[in-house]
């Protein structure tokens, strides 16, 4: 697995460098637009998970690399686990870059003495660290769930066919449920246990609740990726290249 992981990282290195630069600019724009540095690590974390999953799959079909890779001393299992290792590494790298970027932005805003709404939004506030960590871990959850959904499809169908199917799959999994729930009025108290959700959200505003929320997001992300990896292993074992 280590060999496959290192090969993935070698292949993705140049793109990852571009992604860091691009991600920093995008997250800074979003941070400025939303007038909060909270969005910076959150954007990068989510973006890196998704781009990692999709970008790495794209390389598989370049010059039949995905086929040729299996002539190297790697098993299909190595390839799948290496891919997930690379996705997690890139996602976490996005998180670190985003956090550092946000801190640097706040530092620069303070050093330059920026005034106005932007200066106020980007002024360093220790109390912002907790929410920033939680929001980031929540986008880690979103990013890893998306990566968990798309990666088995890429392993089963290859990037070209998967790209044709994924918009429909994403819409069915993520957009349709939200639209149905939103329009059904169920979110206005119709769903049993909605009170519990409100209590949970309230609990997240306490320090202990926030720590628990971060832990839950990380745990659920890990479970989603583990389940996805197990599924990818089964699908890729049977795939005819």
């Amino acid at each position, binding site marked *: 697995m280590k060999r496959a992981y290192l*090969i993935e990282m070698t292949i993705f290195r140049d793109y990852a460098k571009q992604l860091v630069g691009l991600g920093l600019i995008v997250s800074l724009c979003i941070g400025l637009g939303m007038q909060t540095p909270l969005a910076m690590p959150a954007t990068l974390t989510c973006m890196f998970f998704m781009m990692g999953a999709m970008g790495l799959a794209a390389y598989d079909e370049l010059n039949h690399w995905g086929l*040729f890779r299996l002539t190297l*001393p790697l*098993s*299909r299992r190595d390839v799948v686990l290496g891919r997930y290792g690379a996705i997690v590494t890139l996602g976490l790298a996005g998180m670190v870059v985003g956090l550092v970027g946000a801190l640097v932005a706040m530092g620069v805003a303070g050093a330059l003495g920026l005034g106005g709404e932007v200066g106020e939004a980007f002024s360093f506030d220790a109390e912002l660290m907790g929410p920033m960590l939680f929001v980031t871990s929540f986008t880690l959850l979103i990013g890893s769930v998306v990566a968990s959904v798309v990666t088995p499809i890429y392993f089963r169908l290859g990037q070209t066919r998967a790209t044709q199917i994924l918009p429909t799959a994403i819409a069915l999994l993520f957009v349709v449920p939200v639209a149905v729930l939103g329009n059904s009025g169920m979110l206005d108290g119709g769903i049993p246990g909605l009170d519990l959700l409100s209590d949970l959200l309230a609990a997240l505003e306490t320090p202990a609740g926030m720590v628990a929320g971060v832990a839950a997001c990380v745990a659920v992300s890990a479970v989603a990726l583990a389940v996805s990896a197990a599924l990818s292993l089964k699908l890729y074992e049977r795939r005819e*290249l």
Partner: protein
Amino acid sequence: MSALIEARGLTKHYDGFSLEGVDLTVNEGEVVGFIGQNGAGKSTTIKALLGLFPVDGGKAYVLGAPSAELSHPSGAATKEQIGVVFDAISLPEHLRMADVGRIYARAYATWDARRFEHLTAEFGLDAKKTVKELSRGMGMKLSLACAFAHDARLLILDEATAGLDPMARDEVLDRLRDFVAEPGRAVLMSSHITSDLERIADRIVCIDAGHIIFDLPKDVITDEMGIARCRVADFERVAASGIIPERDLRYLRHEYGIDVLVPDRFAFAENFPDIPCDRMTIDDYMALTLKGGVR
């Protein structure tokens, strides 16, 4: 003589094409040329040998390991000893030469970075270029440099000399000859450039429509056999002489005469000194076998 590749009855069915009971052996010290028309099943056979897909029937062993296990963790050690080159460079386009070396160094425990550098320099590959910037021929040279740089015992080359200029092909053939001279090694080489195989192969295996058509020592084809350039009357005379058994009398009609497959061109020349009889080439033999009629 031990077999480095041993396939028996390999069968794989697709819509519109089937590999039907393919038998193929590559023994230690051999260069086996694998020929056939486009779509005949050469690449499919090679992929089946490498365990890149499950087969519907038959068994294959590469370096003693079942092909079906080569994509599993137990097959990784076997693949350390196999160098594979496909008909086009099979690496992502953005990689530079150093990245390619890095990838192979990570893949193979036996990777020899110095040898790779030496080979790429000898092949005239610019270390600063990316895979995308390489011409087809240069790309093949890079693939060959990779295959030669990890102390493989078995090389499986699928159209690996396609796109190489004659000088580079000469160089590669020399290297293959040196490679196979070491004990315990062998080469399976599919190619449409049969002149390369005439120079280097020990045995020629031909596949057509998923069936093995012939498997012969190369010298039997190029040294013993001949191709008689007959007129119609000559052809009837040859047929009537019985020097070639009727069931083996393969011929190909042309506008200007009939080419006849002669199993022993020296015996033929003694019996029919007036009929020109040329040396057989692999191309001629393939054409007579695949397209020729049997009397």
